[in-house]
């Protein structure tokens, strides 16, 4: 009971911080792949008078990564122009059609800027950016992303304040011992050894609890979930390397807390 009482007050805020961190890592991974799929699924349609190469497009805007020319014959096929003589003369009179892929999932402003840059070319007749579809996807994605980041931020802030509170408790509990030890010639390390040991145990327990929570979420919930984005990334939700990231972060936070407590204990 005493063990639980001593440790829970640090484990609780540490787990809050670690959950925030792991949520951030997982969210970053899953949104990254979602962002890539959105990026792959998006292309801009260009109509030009003369033929243009990738370098011609890049000269107008650096965000253009890939250019695919749409064959005129296939366009005519779609229009059901099958008579050979008519097709040939019509094909010769058609402009050139291109599908452009961009180098990332751009913001609406960046997309507008790409469009404006391309408009400067006299050779380009029409630009179709499918902006309304892009905009709705982009705004939903941005909203989810910022809502989640705000949640993680506040979770970390609460964790931080709870740790500061715990540091005050530590100061109250350990200052007398550390002062006496200092008078008898104990080094800084020796004075803080008891606190370091306790904090390390709490850091390890917190990292294991947080990993356990994510392992449970991954295996007991996400695998059976119908949410596409989660199902696709189920194996990336929690990896064993995350345990080490959490352990490192947890130890880093507690060591800073211990250090701040120890250096603030002044001999009377």
């Amino acid at each position, binding site marked *: 009971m005493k063990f639980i009482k001593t440790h829970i007050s640090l484990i609780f805020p540490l787990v809050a911080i670690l959950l925030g961190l792991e949520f951030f890592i997982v969210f970053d991974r899953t949104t990254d792949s979602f962002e890539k799929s959105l990026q792959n699924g998006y292309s801009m349609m260009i109509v030009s008078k003369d033929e243009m190469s990738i370098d011609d497009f890049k000269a107008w805007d650096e965000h253009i990564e890939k250019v695919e020319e749409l064959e005129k014959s296939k366009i005519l096929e779609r229009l059901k122009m099958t008579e050979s003589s008519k097709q040939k003369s019509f094909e010769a009179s058609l402009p050139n059609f291109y599908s452009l892929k961009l180098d990332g999932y751009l913001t609406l402003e960046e997309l507008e800027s790409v469009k404006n840059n391309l408009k400067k070319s006299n050779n380009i007749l029409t630009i179709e950016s499918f902006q309304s579809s892009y905009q709705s996807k982009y705004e939903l994605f941005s909203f989810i992303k910022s809502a989640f980041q705000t949640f993680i931020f506040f979770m970390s802030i609460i964790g931080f304040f709870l740790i500061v509170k715990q540091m005050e408790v530590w100061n109250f509990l350990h200052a*007398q*011992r550390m002062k*006496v030890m200092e*008078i*008898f*010639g104990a080094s800084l390390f*020796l004075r803080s050894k008891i606190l370091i040991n306790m904090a390390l145990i709490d850091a390890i327990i917190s990292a294991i609890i947080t990993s356990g929570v994510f392992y449970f979420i991954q295996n007991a919930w996400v695998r059976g979930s119908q949410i596409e984005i989660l199902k696709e990334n189920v194996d990336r939700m929690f990896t064993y390397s995350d345990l080490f990231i959490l352990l490192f972060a947890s130890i880093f936070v507690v060591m800073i807390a211990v250090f701040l407590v120890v250096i603030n204990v002044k001999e009377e």
Partner: protein
Amino acid sequence: MSNVITANNLTLGYENDEEIIKDANFSIKKGDFVFITGPSGSGKSTLLKSFYGNLSPQEGSLVVGGLDMIDIKKNKLQELRSHLGIVFQDYKLINEWTVEKNVVLPLWISGYSAEVQSTQAKRLLHHVKLSGKEEKYPMELSGGEQQRVGVARALAKNPFLILADEPTGNLDEYSSNVIWDLMENACHQLDTTVVVVTHRIPMVFNIPYRHFTIDENGSVYEIH
């Protein structure tokens, strides 16, 4: 005999405060037993604090155990303190540790084995008449018993210098006598230097001693 403490034109004071000890000159030799007396607020405890590096001299020089106490480096100060025995009026025991663990604190700091620590704790607790109280906690003892634990701790590593600040200030006669006997023995048998700050020198004292006094102006004199 070599000097354990040497003060030359020593001036002590706290930051933004007036000088408390002014221009003191004295030396304390190995095996000396020294009482420092003086009125309340004259600077007795301040002088004692400077001997274990809790307060740095403002002017003059102070050498303790061969180390210059002005701007002394942390590691040197730790080394010096690990060879001192310090006794406080308010005991300064670690309340969450047992009596035995408190007594062997200096040995633990110096990395002595658990076996040595245990043997030494038993021996010292026998000397301070606290055998059988090894597993008690300080708060379970009387003031006199706590101070005897403090003295046992000060003697744990056979220090070359014992510094005691009002060690019998609030104690009953029995505990006071045990403490004076222990300090006399340490000085007489082990040639340990002992410096005691006190309001009153005990009526019966069995070994020769030196008596320093501090007046209201912070001047230190030796009374012969």
